[in-house]
């Protein structure tokens, strides 16, 4: 297996790739220009109307009324979607039985990671009792590996067997599931082999920060940690970034119902975008390479 030095250098490199690529890809999504309104009911922040999908456009002369939003409803909708995969439950029940444990397994692992950080932090701050949380963290991680592993295996079998998925499953999608399954399996194996995985991971983590090359991990622990880091570095380049994209598809497309106001942010930005050149080539566009959107849209087409 790897020496501690190689392991530490490799880990930092993978973490750096993850952070940079994740941030860049998120910024890329966020910096896409505003678009024409394309909202889709129900919009949960519509106060008093979202339960049936209504919007402020139901109001007579809606521009004379204050826009009332209900952010609690919106958060509640999003939480149900994130935690319970509500849309999959409603529209694709067969898949939900695998997709839900797969996702919840990952949430549990993130929670276990959080608990590990908290207990380690408290321990460093002098709360010695926090060290005792390690075994609880390991139990939580074991649950995460079991749920995630069951889900990943189920999803993989579905992708191979179910005719709905077969032709739409790319080699990359199968690779992603295999990689995750390997992470869950090595984690589970490390715990089953009576190794205190949480303590080992914490030790490795502090070793990374302090540069302590004396840190030692067993073979399976090394495999687990490296696969995990490899996954993180690979994640931003895949469709698995859908958990970030989902914020934008919901908040900046489906639920973006902000009307344009005179002199407001949207009008300023829309005017800037309308000033961009149009180069579409069809004859009716009549773009000629110099015209912008305003020129093209206001052109007199009357014969």
């Amino acid at each position, binding site marked *: 297996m790897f020496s501690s030095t190689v392991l530490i250098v490799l880990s930092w490199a993978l973490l750096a790739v993850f952070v940079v690529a994740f941030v860049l890809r998120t910024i890329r*999504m966020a910096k*896409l*220009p*505003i*678009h*024409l*309104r*394309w*909202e*889709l*009911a129900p919009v949960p922040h519509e106060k008093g*109307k979202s339960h*049936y*999908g*209504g*919007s402020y*456009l*139901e*109001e*007579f*002369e809606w*521009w004379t009324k204050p826009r009332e939003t209900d952010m609690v409803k919106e958060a509640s909708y999003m939480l149900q979607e994130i935690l319970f*995969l509500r849309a999959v439950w*409603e529209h694709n029940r067969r898949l939900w039985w695998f*997709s839900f444990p797969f996702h919840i397994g990952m949430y549990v692992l993130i929670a276990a990671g959080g608990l590990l950080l908290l207990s380690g932090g408290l321990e460093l701050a002098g709360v010695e009792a926090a060290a005792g949380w390690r075994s609880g963290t390991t139990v939580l991680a074991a649950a995460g590996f079991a749920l995630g592993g069951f889900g990943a295996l189920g999803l993989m079998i579905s992708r191979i067997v179910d005719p*709905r998925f077969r*032709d*739409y*499953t*790319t*080699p*990359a999608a199968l690779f992603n599931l295999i990689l995750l399954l390997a992470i869950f399996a090595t984690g589970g194996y490390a715990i089953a082999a009576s190794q205190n995985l949480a303590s080992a991971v914490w030790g490795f983590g502090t070793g990374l920060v302090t540069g302590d090359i004396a840190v030692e991990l067993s073979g399976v622990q090394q495999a687990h940690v490296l696969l995990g880091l490899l996954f993180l570095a690979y994640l931003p380049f895949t*469709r*698995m*970034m*859908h958990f970030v*994209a*989902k914020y*934008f*598809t*919901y908040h900046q497309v489906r639920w973006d*119902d902000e*009307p*344009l106001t005179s002199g407001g942010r949207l*009008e300023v930005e*829309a*005017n800037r*975008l*309308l000033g961009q050149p*149009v180069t*579409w*080539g*069809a004859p*009716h*566009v009549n773009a000629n390479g110099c015209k912008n959107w305003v020129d*093209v*849209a*206001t*052109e007199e087409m*009357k014969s």
Partner: protein
Amino acid sequence: MGRCCDRGDEVVSTKKVRVKDIGKRGDEVLCPIGPEDLFELPPPYNESEPAWKELSEATIDKVVCNLDGVVALSIPKPKDEAEEKEYVEKFRIGLTKLLEKNNNWTFLQPLMLSLEYCVNCQSCNEACPVFTSSGGKEIYRPTYRAEVLRRLVAKYTKPGGKLFSRFTHGDIDLNWTTITRLYELAYRCTLCRRCAQACPIGIDNGLISRELRKLFSQELGWAAKELHEKGTVLQLEVGSSTGMNEVVVKDNIEFIDEDMADETGIEVTTPWDKEGADVLLIHNAGEILSWPENPGAFAIILDAAGIDWTLSSESVGYDGVNYGLFYDDVQLSRVTVKHAEAAKKLKVNKIVAGECGHQHKAMLTVSDRVLTGDLAVKRESCLTLLEEIVFSGKIEFDPSKNDFPVTLHDPCNIVRNLGIVEPQRRILRYLCPQFREMTPHGVDNYCCGGGSGFAVMSPNNFTDWRVSVGGRMKLKQILDAFADQPGPEVPKYLCAPCSNCKGQIRDLLQYYDVLEKSNITYGGLVELIVNAMVDVKKPFIKWEMH
């Protein structure tokens, strides 16, 4: 190119259709469909399914028809290989423009998110009325055409795409067969966006259909004739997609005013070009020709309520149609600017959109970030204005005049896409004692099958497809809503406050002989309001097919 695709004489692939097959075996019909594939309707409509029109020999010889055996677009077969290559190259250039901020800022964010993050969980499949009505034809799966576009983008626009895309996205070839099938396939989706509602991630396969149409229109100059040449081009040149200029439209409205006086005993004179009016009402001009009782009923209601209103005779200002919404951002912008300019010229307080779904969506939201500065005229739905009038007490109603079974069709562009759900229902609950909902309804409704411009498209055998496949789920819903009184002895009314939907529903009811078998007629909301007015002495609703 080989022969295709008459049902009796076609070359048909028997293999399961895969995504990459879109570019293969261009001389075969990729995924044939016919009446025998469709799910069974309730009795008595399960006894026999109308036969589909056979394509003429001339059509088969001259146009590309290798997708499903249906021809909506009539793309001429290419003269030679050079012509094929020319269009394929244009498509490739269009693909790159679709991803550019300057050329496609209008929908770049939703498009990129939908292209890059779909995990193909297929949760959207059953939400699509076309896919389910067709018995699950692979090419109609909402993810199919999206996946084709996704693979093309990955392979032909990304660095290293030809090397890596097979691993990351799957195989695909860009050729004449691919683009012509994809073009036709972009017109097998009604853009109802039911699939987008079902998506856990927020992917919008309806939008992808529209983006494909846009690419074809704005780069290759390919668009459905009914939407482009006879639609937006005619509208911008003459003033209306109906072909009516301002003189003809005024004549027709004058005739409708006279007719209304005869029908109801109430004298109305529709005002034209009244400067400073509170309301500029813009109808879908198709109403004036096909359902004149609708603009007539509007005039009666607005006059009775004392609304200060007007129509505009400015070019395009008297026709709320904006087919650009369905296929082309440039044409969408041109038409919407004309609407706003008509309002600006008359210095009205607001534009009110008549009973037309796509007009609602184009005017109220989609154009919102195009109409800046002094073009930012206030715009609202006729449904909110009508609710205000009906419950204002200015008009006396007798709901017992509407004491017959009534159900409501929710136009996708008004309900799912704008969230205008309750105003029309509050009116119907008040004025129609036997009002009942369809299942599902409101924002979960099914499209009529005429969405995205299909209602005005009837070339070749496309009417058979749009009625019996596109409209099948809607017909089932209508019949189910009246299942307690299914026979012809009880007249029943289907309220569809949308011009496009009415066009499709007219064809749907005629195709299956629904008036005769079930005595169901259809019309708008204003007709029911006028029918319930105490001052209107004779029944306003006509129990006949119109």
